């Protein structure tokens, strides 16, 4: 779980382990959705695995994560327990949020997963607050705030980056630029050549990285986390990537030009990362097969737990509205 201090086979394997977990969970979720065994709005992270994995290996459980509806990769990389995640997707009482929040609102403070928001840009102002609390308390915690390229056009992005820079907050704004916001292509909505360019407007460090490249991602993320930890302030980190499954599960994706899709496929980070791991000698085919089996077994258990768990009691509807318990 902890990051190697140096890049090398061990670090690569650490990234891949997380990425593989994401890949396998995502595959399973989609197969459950296809077969109708799961009914939920689902935003697949397929293609963005390395981004989450590459930063998460630098984080401690006590570091904070804020993410979005498309957040399962970030959550898993940050240490989200599979059982709690799956049970929440199934809307069960045993889910992370007792079934009340659902897939778009996964929260698990023990792993630092503080907010998952369904509102574009809604997480950035909150990430500042988490980082500010750590700064005020003198705690060694950084906050990673994930959002998409489309989110960089909403007002909250601007206000948040200005405030974070002004207050030198220990926060990393990780923009996962997958080229689309819902069905709208980057250049039809966003006037900056690159998202990272926008950092200059806040005298903030802006860095662009190939989010499909484990080493580049690992290095860029590590540096941003390190700086935040040292009190050197925030970074806007743009990780260029692609989402293979469209915006939401079932999105026909007709708006993506065929050649663009094919080019992205040729750059699919997962086969490449696997090959790199094998090449590096950090793990053998057998090791990885065993790892897959291990993850799948845990996933089986988690899904069994989820499906076997009870739905929340209807009385839960009145709980957790206010701290005092029942709604007034």
């Amino acid at each position, binding site marked *: 779980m902890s990051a190697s201090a140096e890049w090398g086979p061990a670090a690569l394997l650490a990234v891949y382990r997380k990425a593989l977990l994401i890949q396998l969970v995502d595959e399973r979720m989609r197969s459950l959705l296809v077969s109708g065994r799961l*009914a*939920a*709005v689902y935003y697949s992270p397929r293609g963005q695995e390395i981004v989450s994995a590459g930063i998460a290996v630098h984080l401690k459980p006590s570091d904070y994560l804020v993410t979005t509806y498309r957040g399962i990769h970030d959550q898993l990389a940050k240490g989200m327990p599979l059982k709690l995640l799956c049970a*929440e997707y199934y*809307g*069960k009482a045993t889910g992370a*949020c007792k*079934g*009340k*929040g*659902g*897939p*778009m*609102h996964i929260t698990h403070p023990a792993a630092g997963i503080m907010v998952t*928001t*369904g*509102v*574009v*840009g*809604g997480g950035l102002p909150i990430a500042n607050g988490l980082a500010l609390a750590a700064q005020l308390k003198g705690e060694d915690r950084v906050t990673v705030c994930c959002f998409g390229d*489309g*989110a960089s*056009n*909403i*007002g*909250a992005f601007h206000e948040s980056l200005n405030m974070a820079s002004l207050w030198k907050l220990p926060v990393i704004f990780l923009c996962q630029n997958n080229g689309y*916001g*819902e*069905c*709208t292509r980057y250049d*039809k*909505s*966003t006037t900056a050549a690159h998202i990272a360019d926008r950092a200059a407007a806040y005298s903030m460090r802006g860095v662009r990285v190939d989010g499909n490249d484990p080493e580049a991602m690992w290095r860029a993320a590590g540096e941003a986390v390190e700086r935040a930890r040292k009190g050197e302030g925030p970074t806007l980190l743009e990780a260029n990537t692609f989402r293979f499954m469209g915006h939401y599960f079932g999105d*026909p994706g*007709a*708006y993506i030009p065929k050649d663009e899709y094919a080019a992205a496929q040729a750059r699919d980070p997962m086969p490449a990362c696997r090959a790199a791991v094998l090449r590096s000698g950090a793990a053998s085919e057998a090791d990885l097969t065993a790892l897959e089996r291990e993850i799948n077994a845990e996933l089986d258990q988690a899904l069994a737990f989820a499906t076997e768990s009870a*739905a*929340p009691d*209807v009385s*839960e*509807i*009145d709980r957790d*509205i206010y701290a005092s318990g029942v*709604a007034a």
Partner: protein
Amino acid sequence: MSPAATAQKTISFTDAYRLALDEALGADPTVFLLGEDIGDEEGGGVFKVTKGLSTKYGKHRVRTTPISEEAIVGAAVGAALAGMRPVAEIMLMNFVTVAMDQIVNHAAKLRFMSGGQTGVPITIRTRTGAGAGTAGQHSDMLEAWFAHVAGMKVVVPSTPADAMGLLTSCIFDDDPCLFIEDSLTRALTGPAPPPGHRVPLGRANVSHEGSDVSVIGYGRPIRDALALAERLKGEGISVEVVDLRTVSPLDTETVLKSVAKTRRAVVVHEAPRSFGVGAEVTARIQEHLYDSLAAPVLRVASRDVPVPFAKVLEQEYLYKPAAIEAAIRRTLDSKARR
């Protein structure tokens, strides 16, 4: 169901919205649309309401925008000040929370604050509603907020024909209109309206006449009320259904006329009960008809909680048709005071 499938006799809500937009774009060059993903290159909108329109009328009149709701509504407001009739789409109602300044401080007030010099004939289309498992940030009915803002008109259709006719009226109305579509029932069909169909704003519709009790509401619950009215007829209970259509300005006259006749009222909406539209309708009825009421005005609404994800909780959150029936029976059980 597509119109073709039923020989043009019925259309879905989605068809109805598209029809209204299509006709308005065709009829008036000052009408244009803006919103996220609404162009055909982007698939014609996440809910396909605008499908085909950018191809037909051009990308300059059916404009895909960045994810910038404040700028979307603001662009509509400014264009309206300059004589256009913009129709802005806010994908889901919870996202109006990032455009409230433009709507409340500007769109609603610029006519008054300018002493009548500048009007803001914009339509904001949005959609929402619980029941589809999209949970706390994608399901809220917030119409009560806008009803509380002078200068706004708030419109909620309950049939595809009304959807077409009301949306058309909103577009050609000279004031800012918030038009709220129901996510859950968008594929439901109903009789197709004639071309050019308009339903006047500010007028409630007695969609089922009756004499024992008035059920007053708007949007989704109207279907439930109509079904109940039919069913209870068998028991000899005569239910009048008043569909507000325009939530604000409220057609108090039609409401009072109905309740003056029935002396009993049940007010229904999907939004949470407390501080909702039903409170205002209730307050007005008892203010005006205190002496003739035969029972307290009862409210049926969703629970005062965030919309939960788990199906069982989401259903528990939602107002229930059975609760409308129970309320009707309760008002009938009340002994008249005079």
